[in-house]
């Protein structure tokens, strides 16, 4: 290895701050909110442990598309919808427990693959605008989902259970009780450590997924995704099937989101049929960004740190708001605003960094002759 370029320490601190500004702001806010919330440490930690099991899988589903250079896959809500459809059938068939969850996964998988393939096709036609396209695609598919669940289910698609259909005879009720599968995965293997309960089976599934992702990165396909993520033209000219690989990345992401949503809902125990998936992409994106990922680079530690930080804030900010402002609603309002701000900040930072990098790359071409000219000085014209 070459000897790394040593920066003076002040500059190093500045650069570290610039690279991690999102995380730092978040830590700052949370650090203020934790003591003001007056919640006990045990409560906070137990809540965090539960939320890890509930959310981490969903956030993991964002990793591969980022690696393939497609940004944050807001289209993951398509997978969430597939998972919900799977759960509707599992409840309708009355299959309880972990078997019910497996059944939901089996039903959801082909739907998720189909939707992922469609999303991949669309995103291939919207290169460079994958994120906004995925986001809008989610809204559109939400309409399709409503049509299927609200009108077709019970009318054309056979639904046997009267308990989950609307009283008019077709369409699924607004809230679906998931009593038959509630926390079946979490409770499969509960571990009690001191005052805490740990849903070990859920953690095991998440750990398996993390291992899968580590392994996947070492495969040829993973290597191709990394290459495409950095330069599509070069990858194409090396003979890597760029479009296919991008579609595969989205299909896998959609599949994982499908499983993730099922894990999420089994923990919640009930499902807002028409709303449960709406915020999924947004929460997952906020989590991974808070963990220090950018839309171009994300790692497994980013996911783990991000889920922890985001949910820590979600736990402590409403009570802190209640104590400081006399209203929990202000806290809730504040945490939503914070999450959106994080996404906006991360996107703006990414665009800004990309431009700065391109500029310094071009400046490098100038060669030594103009090295005396400080680009910063000439910003406003060489005066």
């Amino acid at each position, binding site marked *: *290895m*070459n000897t790394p370029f040593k920066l003076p320490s002040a500059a190093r601190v500045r650069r570290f701050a610039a690279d991690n500004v999102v995380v730092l702001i978040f830590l700052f806010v949370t650090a203020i909110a934790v003591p003001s919330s007056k919640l006990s440490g045990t409560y906070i930690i137990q809540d965090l442990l539960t939320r890890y099991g509930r959310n981490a899988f969903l956030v993991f589903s964002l990793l591969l598309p980022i690696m393939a250079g497609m940004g944050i896959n807001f289209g993951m809500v398509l997978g969430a919808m597939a998972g919900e459809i799977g759960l509707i059938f599992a409840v309708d068939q009355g299959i309880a427990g972990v078997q019910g969850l497996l059944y939901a996964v089996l039903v959801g998988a082909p739907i998720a693959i189909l939707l992922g393939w469609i999303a991949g096709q669309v995103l291939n036609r919207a290169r460079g605008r994958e994120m906004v396209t995925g986001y809008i695609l989610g809204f559109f598919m939400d309409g399709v989902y409503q049509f299927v669940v609200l009108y077709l289910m019970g009318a054309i698609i056979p639904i046997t259970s009267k308990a989950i259909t609307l009283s008019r005879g077709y369409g699924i009720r607004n809230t679906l009780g998931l009593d038959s599968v509630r926390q079946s995965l979490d409770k499969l293997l509960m571990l009690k450590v001191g005052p805490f309960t740990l849903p070990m089976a859920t953690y095991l599934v998440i750990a398996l997924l993390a291992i899968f992702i580590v*392994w996947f990165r*070492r*495969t*040829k*396909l993973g*290597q*191709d995704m*990394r*290459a495409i993520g*950095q*330069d599509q*033209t*070069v*990858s194409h*000219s*090396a*003979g*890597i099937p760029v479009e296919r690989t991008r579609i595969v990345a989205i299909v896998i992401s959609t599949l994982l989101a499908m499983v993730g949503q099922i894990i999420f809902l089994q923990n919640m125990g009930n499902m807002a049929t028409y709303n449960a998936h709406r915020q999924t992409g947004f929460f997952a994106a906020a989590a991974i960004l808070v963990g220090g990922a950018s839309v171009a680079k994300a790692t497994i530690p980013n996911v783990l740190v991000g889920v922890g930080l985001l949910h820590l804030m979600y736990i402590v900010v409403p009570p802190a708001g209640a104590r400081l402002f006399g209203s929990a609603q202000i806290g809730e309002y504040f945490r939503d605003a914070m999450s959106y701000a994080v996404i906006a900040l991360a996107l703006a930072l990414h665009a800004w960094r990309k431009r700065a990098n391109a*500029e310094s790359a*071009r*400046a490098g*071409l*100038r*060669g030594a*002759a*103009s090295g005396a*000219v400080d*680009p910063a000085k*000439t*910003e*406003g*014209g*060489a005066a």
Partner: protein
Amino acid sequence: MPDDTPLLSLEGITKDFYGTTVLRDVSFALRRGEILGLVGENGAGKTTLMRILFGMPVIAETGGFGGTVRIDGRPASFRNPFDALDAGIGMVHQEFSLIPGFTTTENIMLNREQSRRNVAVDLFGPRMATLDRPAMTARASKAIERLGVELHPDTLVSEMPVGHKQFTEIAREIDRENVKLLVLDEPTAVLAESEAEILLASLRRLAAQGIGIIFISHRLHEVTAVADRVVVLRDGQLVKDTSAKGVEVREIAAWMVGREVDANARVRSDRSFGGPALEVEHLWVDMPGETVRDVSFSVREGEIFGIGGLAGQGKLGIPNGIMGLFAAGGEVRLHGKHVALDAPRAALDAGMAFVSEDRRGVGLLLDESLDWNIAFTAMQVKGAYLRRWLGGLFSLRDEKAMRALAEQYIEMLEIKCTGHRQKAKELSGGNQQKVCLAKAFALEPNLLFVSEPTRGIDVGAKKLVLDKLRHYNRDEGTTIVMVSSELEELRAICDRVAIVDEGRIAGILPPEAPLADFGLLMAGERAAEASA
């Protein structure tokens, strides 16, 4: 040389694009272990020839080519570049095609990674195989060793100096087991002198191992230093195929620019010029693909100053930078007054106008009518063709004045159109160019930049455009800086011609200087050597 069959032979290669012949009956052969220097100006046909060799789809799409390409004596016709790669031909491009976040090894082995089978392969196909990193590193190290350079297999490309990036590219090509022919297109363009030396040494090493090399470069001293043979293309024809032994750079330069019919010793009325109109000192411009590194020159009042040079060397960056279209720095003075860079408005306000080489992108409002196009900049910059109401509180377009202006220029420049309301996009290239000129003239500039004024327009329009520029200069006394790839055109109307090479001015010559001198400047020889 082991056997007589040449590694590569091109026989009577002919190619035309839509009736324009770009290659005519080009034949030459390359033996194993031989380095062939291929030189020629822009548009001489080098690129097209290489595209044919590599089976680029664009060749088939435009009607194929005439003649035969033989590899090891057998006719070869590749349908796409991957066929060519399979046949053992490697190409190293001018711009790097490397993945910045990958290591040397990962780049060398890109899409040829060595892998191990596993269960997932049987289930989901070969792309699920895991990479065998130690084996990849070993192979990459072998390729690097063949090159004879120092390159660490685990360095990230983004952290390498440019020279190492170039070596990584070459290592990637020679890693293929069957590679026998390597084409390098301007491999030294981005390298410092010392790096270029190392590269040339590696090429000799590769040739000694039996690989045939086609070395395309405009740095002629490198060609004479490394090549065994030199092939010169000019206007699509092979004008010289000779052993490189004893050939001088000056001779090659003369063959390259050629056209010894030097009857155009123009009768120049003794032109007299005023003081300096435009002074440029240490200008740099970040224009992608046309980087200007360090340029200083001065243009006299009333002069037509030409700027020439090969594509990509930075000549286009000069006007674009001064006019504020790309990030630039340095000192520019117009009539002694400082002009702010990075601000198009400041350049326009100072009295400079620019006819861009990017006619359709920068030059014209394609969906608007001619009168709009011609009056637009003058309206913005000078507030001309506007009628003020309520003491200047608001102003409206003066359609009548615009119409008169448009009609004046349509007549003067012989713009072929249905009228001043016709849309700019409906005109032919030549007439669009005239509209661009009219737009610049309407500003009544005291200094006019014209960039590639005759690119992509037919011969008749070319002559007219050049004549108009000359007349405008004579009649209005406007100083003109003309940038062009066509040396002949620069020599025809300019009072002095500067040649730009690698972002710097290699030298400034009078137009009647011998062609070989221009060729030498383009070849990266400095002014001192050229005039010697």
